[in-house]
């Protein structure tokens, strides 16, 4: 199962607009996508499609998160989420 560790760049962390954009992007893919704190190697990853779950992680700016994908276009989904987390807020193309 492909995995990645990414440092969260947006100032707000995984809250508010970045969290919204993250969840929206995750919902565009058909594969199973999960996210959690990177330091927590055995920690549970949560459903990246759930705003509730993603926000509850309490991920802040500069924290490292682990992304895992399983299923169709897993790498494409990871690319999209990684790009989102690596882009400072304001540069994201939010409509």
């Amino acid at each position, binding site marked *: 199962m492909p995995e990645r560790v990414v440092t969260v760049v947006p100032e707000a962390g995984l*809250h508010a*607009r970045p969290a*919204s954009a993250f969840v929206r992007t995750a919902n565009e893919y058909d594969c199973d996508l999960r996210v959690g704190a990177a330091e927590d190697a055995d920690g549970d990853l949560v459903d990246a499609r759930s705003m509730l779950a993603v*926000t509850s992680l309490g991920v802040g700016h500069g924290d490292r998160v682990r992304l895992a994908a399983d299923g169709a276009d897993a790498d494409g989904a990871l690319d999209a989420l990684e790009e989102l987390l690596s882009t400072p807020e304001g540069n994201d193309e939010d409509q």
Partner: protein
Amino acid sequence: MSERTLSGVGATPLTATGEVVWYRPDFELPDRSADEVDARAERERFAVAQQLAREELENERARAEERIGADEAAVFDAHIQFLEDPQIEQPIVDAIENGLPAEHAVRDGYESAIAQFEGMDGRMADRADDLRDVRDRLLRLLTGTDRMDLSDLPDGSVVFAERLTPSDTAQLDPEAVAGFATVTGGRTSHAAIFARSLALPAVVGIGDELREIEDSEVVVDGEAGEVIADPDERTCRKATRTEQADVRSESVMTADGESIEVAANVGRPVEIEGATERGADGIGLYRTEFLFLDREEPPDEDEQFEAYREALAAFPDGRVVVRTLDIGGDKPIPYLDLPDEDNPFLGERGIRRSLGPDSALFETQLRALLRAASETAGDLAIMFPLVARVEEFEAGRERVEEIREDLRATGMAVDAPEIGSMIETPAAAFLAEDLATRADFLSIGTNDLTQYVMAADRGNERVGPLHDPRHPAVLRAIRHTVDATDGTWVGMCGEMAGDPALTELLVGLGLDELSMSAVTVPEVKARIADTDSTAARTLADRALRKSTKRGVTELLTEHETGVDQ
């Protein structure tokens, strides 16, 4: 049913009895037994409600984006995502399959999601509020309840709410509302200031317990800072018998003959009436923002002219001190392109905007003010908010002079208004002497001054104890300001000025004018009349030597009990 007493912070020393109306309504959920519930039909109802909620949210999102900006609109994105969140949706669908009606399943499903965020701090707590909003939207759609309309409440309503924002209170009909109580907020929260400006009984910051009170008769006792649910007859009788100091319409002097002006803080026409009724000598703070809030475009010069003329005409023998537009910070205005700032209270607000992006609005406002003054007997004084530099005051003053010259060139007789600087920033307090030599008066805005001197956000309850003007640092900033002036009058227009327990201290600190919510004018006038200015100065000197707020409050309590004996 027996009485239940909840404690909070009294916003006004007034009491009222009425029926509770929840601003965020609790929905009546129909009670149905399991065998009446058709799981398939309930799933369909849930799906329809979800779809309708989504459409509403998308519409509101578009409207917010157009009126306020993308950041506000993003809130609705989060709501849409919660609405369709698989981790919330699945338990709701499961509960429906297990025989629960859709509205009960929604309530329970959201309750457990809300519980995850509750008790967490800051942003997480905001998410709990988002979830409540989404839940209430679904419940409203499922139960066919109409949206709450704050402008159309039954007479004698006591409004309970989580919090009240400026746009909420702008809708409230003060004639119908007997009083209100809120879960959050302190003495300087918007809700508390609103209550004082309209002389409404109110208790704020009661906490979660308030949510447990519904469909009840309640007494709101602002004096004690209590809400009493299901009051017994004795409590009700007591509540209708609140004592008020007599209204004195004449100006007051201390017992030894020192004149102190007692003025009112007002924002809207209805408050001007309250100010004259309660015997204010004039207006010490006219907050002009209310003219600009809750509308699609700014009021034009003529509309402002009418409003200012009305205020000046109400005090033909008095002075009306108008604060020029003070926006930014916690007072967003949809049609202005206000920047998204990390620290709006330290950002572009007050005179900074008036001399910058809002210079055209500033000019229109000054023209309307000067025109109004030329047609009325009342004396106009203009003051600028959030001054931090001498140059800002001078630039503001120059604008007034330029516009006055323009008007005179058209043949209008315009007297020079008094022009003053607000002392709200530590910078202005340090520069009081330099400002005083250039200004006709200074006015200390203690809410902001306390916030900035103590570095404590006035809306943040976690630092609530820091937000108290009795801290020695704040008292010394006030004393420094008063001492720096020589012949220039100094007023005070924050909430501190209207606290009768501090009147003697303020007289002793040497303030020439105190401006407060109209509701406390009679009591403060009575206090001044009982005050001996020499004793007051001794009290102030002793207070200024204290190193701690506790030292100050103990001194004041001691003094008060000594006087009473």
